[in-house]
């Protein structure tokens, strides 16, 4: 009997591992971008095996489920707090911070006729740092933003999003499953910043709230295949009750222009990146938005992807808004994308989560 059981064990073990090996080699799903991976070294081969291994999501879900069952509240650096997943933002070094401040200062110095604003959006780990165990709370974002603002020339008006979001921390201001500000959080930021930019903010009652997507599971949870202990998100879109002021949104990518009639890309809601609904994600280097407010001033925004949800609220105060995405415009010069002097206001808006992208526009090539 023991021999039969031993034989069953051996056959089962080798059958399973051979089946998985064959599935890894011959039945792996095609790559998202359709490219074939080249193998130049043994480490490339090992990496490819890890990428192509079958049933990855099921295995991830099993691992996450098991760890959550044994009481883990932190998985691979992501903390499960209340019903949200929060991943502490990576520390930003001083060089990167001063570099960003220098860029804004140089710009402001060479465009004295333009009102320049700077706004840095904190991440969820910055606002909820007190809830995260000190082993994972990352760096002090409040202190970082203060230091950055102190390094920016006084001619540039700095907009304090941290205090605004901190005072709204009991509200649904960050997605529970994605490292991004919600529409509610974005409205709060807009409400506080637009005053400093010289406008009277439109109250929330001026907007219709639309449940664009329910049951959204963002990247923080999908990467870990977590389904337990998390409440899925809703993506809401706020549209003005008296109709949108946007007449066109011309998106530019590699000299190709596509014209839309909205700042919301609703087709993204059914894609794998539903948050691209705001400003078409980082798919375009530049988006030129024109509105019906012909006599209103114009605004140039140089932003990182996390700032997208705020921009739709700003649009209604301007005749023209040009949005440059620093990630998409990687390596390009500002002058090749827009003539900064032709705008009344310029807003540098970066978020801590994507602060790396502030290096997108090559400083040396910028013809400020």
């Amino acid at each position, binding site marked *: 009997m023991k021999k039969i059981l031993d034989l069953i*064990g051996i056959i089962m073990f080798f059958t399973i*591992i051979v089946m998985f090996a064959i599935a890894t080699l011959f039945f792996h799903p095609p790559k998202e971008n359709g490219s074939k991976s080249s193998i130049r070294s043994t480490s490339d081969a090992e990496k490819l095996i890890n990428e192509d291994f079958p049933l990855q999501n099921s295995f991830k879900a099993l691992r996450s489920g098991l760890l959550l069952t044994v009481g883990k509240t932190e998985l691979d650096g992501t903390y499960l707090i209340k019903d949200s997943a929060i991943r502490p933002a990576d520390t930003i070094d001083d060089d990167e911070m001063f570099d960003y401040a220098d860029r804004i200062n140089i710009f402001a110095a060479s465009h004295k006729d333009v009102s320049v604003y700077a706004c840095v959006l904190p991440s969820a780990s910055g606002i909820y740092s007190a809830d995260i165990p000190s082993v994972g709370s990352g760096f002090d974002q409040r202190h970082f933003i203060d230091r950055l603002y102190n390094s920016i020339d006084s001619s540039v008006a700095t907009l304090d999003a941290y205090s605004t979001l901190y005072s709204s921390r009991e509200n649904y201001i960050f997605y529970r499953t994605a490292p991004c500000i919600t529409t509610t959080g974005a409205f709060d930021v807009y409400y506080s910043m637009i005053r400093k930019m010289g406008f009277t903010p439109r109250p929330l009652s001026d907007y219709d709230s639309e449940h664009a997507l329910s049951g959204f599971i963002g990247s923080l949870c999908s990467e870990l295949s977590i389904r337990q202990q998390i409440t899925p998100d809703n993506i809401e879109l706020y549209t003005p009750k008296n109709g949108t002021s946007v007449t066109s949104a011309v998106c530019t990518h590699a000299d190709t222009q596509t014209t839309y009639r909205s700042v919301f890309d609703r087709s993204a809601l059914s894609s794998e990146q539903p948050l691209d609904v705001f400003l078409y994600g980082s798919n375009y280097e530049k988006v030129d938005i024109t509105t019906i407010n012909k006599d209103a001033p114009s605004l140039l925004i140089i932003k990182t992807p996390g700032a997208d949800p705020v921009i739709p609220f700003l649009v209604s105060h301007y005749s023209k808004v040009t949005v440059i995405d620093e990630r998409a415009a990687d390596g390009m010069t500002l002058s090749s994308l827009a003539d900064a002097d032709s705008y009344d206001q310029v807003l540098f808006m970066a978020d801590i989560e994507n602060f790396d992208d502030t290096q997108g526009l090559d400083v040396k090539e910028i013809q400020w």
Partner: protein
Amino acid sequence: MIMSSLLFLYFFLPLFIGLYAFVPAKHKAKMLILGECVFLGWRSLYALIPFAGSMLLAYLLGMTIDNLRFKKRSQGAVLVIALTIELTMLGLAVYSMLGFKGAGTISKLFPPLGVFVYTLAAMSYYLDIYKGVIRCDHRFSLVAAFVGFFPCLTAGPLMRYGEVSQQFSAPQMSIEKTNDGISLYLKGLAEKCIISCTMGEMWGQLTKIDIGSVSAVTAWFGVICAGLYVYFEFASISHMARGVSLMLGIELPVNFDHPFKSVSATEFIGKFNVSVTSWFKSYIYDPVNALGGRLFMVLGIILTGTAMSLWYGTSLSRLMFGMYIAVLCIAELLFAGRILKKLPYVVAMVINMLLIHLAMVFFVSEDCSYAFSFILAMFGKNGMLIDNLTLHFFENYAVIMITGLLITTGVFDLAYKRLGRSRHSFIPFLRPLWQLMLLILSTAFMTGRVQDFSGLLAL
């Protein structure tokens, strides 16, 4: 290549075992050499140069030492040359690990994987021939297969040629051995992927905190974590190595015999990584101790502790670990042993575990000052009994720590034996399911994230 990887489990292992099983017995050693080269060469082809050199020298110099057995002086001279070559290789590996100038090329030749095992295997072969324990083997394939036996290349067990030569010349593969090997390998894999990596992660989190703000209870959690981390890091590798060896028809002795149940430091080191301890004891402690007197006994222990700590790592804190264990052993042999014997078993075990765990703090710490501060924090130097991190660590790691403690203290093994002893035991029927569960769980932990599997060995 490491044994706790998808590549090894799903590709190398079935392919190699399949080929090995069908190769005639007389060619199995050659097959092993091929496997050894793939296993080691996967990381760096350059590493095969000293590896092959060590195999070839073991064969040639082993024969020379044996042939000169009636000319002791010449034999001794050849032995010194052989040992010098192997020690030079070890020295170069240590040099490259310390990251000195020009270490780049050397690190390609001597990556940490393998060199600390095959050099010791070759040295034991020379020394055993010299001492007349064994005769040289004239079959190159057997000597080479022994020196670079790939399941042991990661971190042992270290073999002695006299104990395994029969098995290398005629490996006995069987259904029972293969299945036992699978179970053992999967046990080691699960220990590595689930417990060792989790403990490593916890220790990593602990070291991120300013040591001056660690509360006493958190530090006590940390010290248990350190002990489990070190134990499972090496025990898992040993279990995987023994499991793979068993699949190949080569049975290696038990290497971890529940060391955390020991009542003295000497007992502990005799049960922790037994083959490694035994290697250093045989070739360093025994010859020095044989000179007679307490002084040489103390010297032998210090030299053995130093050499062993260098084998485990090149940092000063690892050296401190070795020295600390050596001091404990000396104290026991000189006076404390008598006191320990008078104490009740449980009391002696708890005292011993506390002392051993303090050593583990040195083992896992990057520097000695951190280890000292950590130990002081355990005893309340920071003025806090508990802090908010205590709950975090308890909540996140208590279940895995308790599981680890039940395994290390042998409670699981005892239950398994008790249940298996019954005439109508259901345990044999559960074994395939147990294996399946370990395979799935280990795979889940290997694919679940890109995690650092190198652990304490920095492979």
